[in-house]
């Protein structure tokens, strides 16, 4: 039952559960309709929030939360509804020594009556990002390492392991390394995708600011079987971590998944600087790239040829098995009459060749294009035979792609494109569709894949594929190719390369 009461400097006291690091305060309030046009309605009432310790002494709040007033201390104006309740949400940090949160609702503009519909509610939480510094979690992450197994630190631009997407190469390799028995400590780019510090047996994840603490703990223990992998993130912290790791006698790997210099050129990866990448290439014990182009670039930047290798991207074994039914003769036959061409991926004009695709669609009205992804530019003139489907889940992709005659990778000619080893190639092949791709990495060695070298050739290859027939040899070569591309094979290969030979090291 809701009871309304006019705000009159009422105090609400909440005890803080142990271990809380954040609190969310919700206050439901409203002003009567007659005050709708009142001046200063926005400042009619507020809540002040004070923190006290177990002795009742004030605890200094963090700055990142609330404005502070000389009169009432930390506060937030109430965002009251007019005539009906509206909830104001206030988020605050809860310092470790805080035992109580005192919330006081106050009228600020006396002429305006503000009513609470209920007492403020407060929810406490342990914020994973805040708790990550706790020594016990770091200690847990590095204890009970199996003999002869490694601690693998993965410092990367990829999202956290809990991210709802299938994950990038570092996420996949983290799982592979963990299955090999190694202990993986994963540092994603941001805090997105970190729900649990202990993601799985043998995989722990932390925000990047924890890296010095981890190095501190490992070096105190005298840990020696450690591999530091910088995965396409040669920032200031990574180069220093690499030098430190080497001085501790650990192995260091610079994994190059993309041409980050070119990403930076087109406006992404603002942290990047060529000089740092050069330093990383030269200082790391090993350099692993996804494409021959990137391997050559790293050697040009000073990496040793003898310790630089290409290990392409791969296929998830489970996905390969799940899609087996799409790579049968029957499945191929079922798509034979389709004139639908599909794409899945980012649609930024920085690499997606919109002029080529639009022109090809207009000149070939009998072809249908279905495009899955986000990032398409605004205000482009899409012809009727292009259907922008927006972002889709991977399961939705599996259903949609059954109607595709082929998949395309229409990327602009650029160094960024030449260096890419596109994951979508493997996905297209797994769902049993041939591919027409711009020149990049080693796509020309993949089965059912044709590479175009100019715009006219792109359209020609689409038409040829639509009109063509599959051969049974295509099925065999497809199975053979994909069965050598599993992520666990890539992970084994990387560990073997580092160990200088052998499989599971």
């Amino acid at each position, binding site marked *: 039952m809701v009871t309304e009461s006019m705000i009159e400097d009422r105090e609400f006291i909440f005890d803080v559960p142990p271990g809380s690091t954040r609190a969310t305060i919700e206050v439901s309030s409203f002003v009567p309709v007659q005050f709708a046009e009142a001046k200063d309605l926005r400042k009619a009432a507020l809540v002040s929030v004070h923190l006290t310790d177990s002795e009742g*002494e*004030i*605890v*200094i709040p*963090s*700055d990142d939360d609330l*404005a*502070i*007033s*000389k009169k009432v*201390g*930390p506060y937030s104006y109430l965002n009251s509804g007019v005539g009906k309740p509206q909830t104001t949400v206030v988020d605050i940090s809860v*310092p470790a*020594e805080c035992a109580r949160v005192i919330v006081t609702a106050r009228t600020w503009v006396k002429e305006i009556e503000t009513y609470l519909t209920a007492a403020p509610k407060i929810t406490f939480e342990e914020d994973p990002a805040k708790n990550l*510094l706790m020594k016990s979690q770091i200690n847990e992450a590095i204890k009970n390492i199996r003999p002869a197994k490694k601690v693998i630190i993965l410092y990367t631009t990829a999202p956290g392991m809990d991210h709802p997407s299938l994950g990038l190469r570092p996420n996949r390799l983290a799982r592979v390394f963990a299955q090999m028995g190694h202990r993986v400590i994963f540092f994603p780019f941001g805090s997105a995708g970190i729900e649990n510090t202990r993601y799985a047996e043998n995989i722990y994840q932390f925000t990047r600011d924890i*890296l*010095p*603490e981890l*190095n*501190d703990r490992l*070096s*105190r223990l*005298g840990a020696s079987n450690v591999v530091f992998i910088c995965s396409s993130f040669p*920032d*200031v*912290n990574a*180069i*220093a*971590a690499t*030098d*430190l790791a*080497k*001085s*501790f*006698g650990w192995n260091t790997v610079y994994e190059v998944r993309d041409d980050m210099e070119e990403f930076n050129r087109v406006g992404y990866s603002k*942290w990047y*600087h060529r*000089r*740092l990448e*050069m*330093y990383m290439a*030269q*200082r790391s014990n090993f350099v692993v790239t996804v494409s021959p182009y990137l391997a050559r670039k790293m050697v040009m930047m*000073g990496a040793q040829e003898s310790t630089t290798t290409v290990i392409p991207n791969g296929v998830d074994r489970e996905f390969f098995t799940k899609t087996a039914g799409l790579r049968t003769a029957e499945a191929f036959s079922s798509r034979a009459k389709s004139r639908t061409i599909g794409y899945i991926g980012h649609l930024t004009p920085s690499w997606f060749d919109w002029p080529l695709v639009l022109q090809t669609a207009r000149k070939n009205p009998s072809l249908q294009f279905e495009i899955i992804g986000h990032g398409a530019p605004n205000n482009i003139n899409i012809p009727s035979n292009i259907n922008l489907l927006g972002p889709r889940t991977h399961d939705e992709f599996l259903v949609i792609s059954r109607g595709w005659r082929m998949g395309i990778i229409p990327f602009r000619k650029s160094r960024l494109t030449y260096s890419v080893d596109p994951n979508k190639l493997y996905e297209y092949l797994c769902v049993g569709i041939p591919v027409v791709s711009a020149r990049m990495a080693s796509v020309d060695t993949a089965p059912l894949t044709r590479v175009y070298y100019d715009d006219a050739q792109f359209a020609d290859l689409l038409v040829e594929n639509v009109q063509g027939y599959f051969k049974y040899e295509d099925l065999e070569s497809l199975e053979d190719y994909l069965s050598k591309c599993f992520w666990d094979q890539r992970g084994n290969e990387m560990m073997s390369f580092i160990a200088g030979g052998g499989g599971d090291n």
Partner: protein
Amino acid sequence: MLRSRAVAHPAEKHWFLFEQNWGGLEEFNKLANATTRIISGGQLQLYIHYITKNISFDEVRITSNPILIGYFPSNVKIIYEFHTSNDVILAREIYQMAWNRVDEVWVPSNWMFTKIKELIPLGHEKKIIVQKNIIDASIFNEIRKESCLFDFEGSIPLIWIGRFDLGKNVSDFIKTLSLLPDEYIGVVVSLDSDLLRMTEVLSEALAFGLWSRLRIFLNLRPWQLSELNRQAAMHNGIYCSTSLGESFGYTVAEASYCGLPTVAYDVGALREHNTDLIRFVDVGDLFGFAEEVLSVRSGE
């Protein structure tokens, strides 16, 4: 310095308010007798008003920003600490200071005492007290561990620690390294993670062809720093101070506590450390600096 004081006086309760996060926050958070916050400048005055209204402080110590003096109530003892040796910054701080409101002025060395005394308004000289910085001898000492944390790969390590500002002068360290034989490597422990400044340092080192002889460390813990100093000493290493001014010379002092010889530009308060481990070179004399490094090795 601030942290060491809290460690040295465990019965005191310290509140540390920083305007910027220069790193190392976790070391302060470990202190049982300290509460640490980073408060952005815009909120600072109101924040100080709030906490001084609710907490009774015995004294307030302010450094690097004399404007903050006016934020505190008149009944609180105010100590202003000068730590910079940069003349421009010093002059600005002295000019902005509300001298009548300051009860004491702390400086970390006799050298700074003499300098400040000449610069401050008449009548306030008696407020100046030399309060030497405290080196945590429980961490920085010559007690060697059995295992070696750092591998210098058979080279002679030259250690440089600091931010990449003009005063600290990492450029002269790089130039000095270029004058020395290949058996010397440069270990730069940066207190600066700024991208552009880091790339400038790397570019300069690259221009001198020194990348294979350079190591960049960041975010070392105090115990790791002390290990670095000790192990550098075991490997005939030297701490290099190319700083153009030092109000105290913290890293030089820490090096000497760990038994690591130092070659330093003869500036500021460095001679007050009173140890044979420090050899002095005229400020800016690059060639003299390189020769002195070599003479340490040769035992001259």
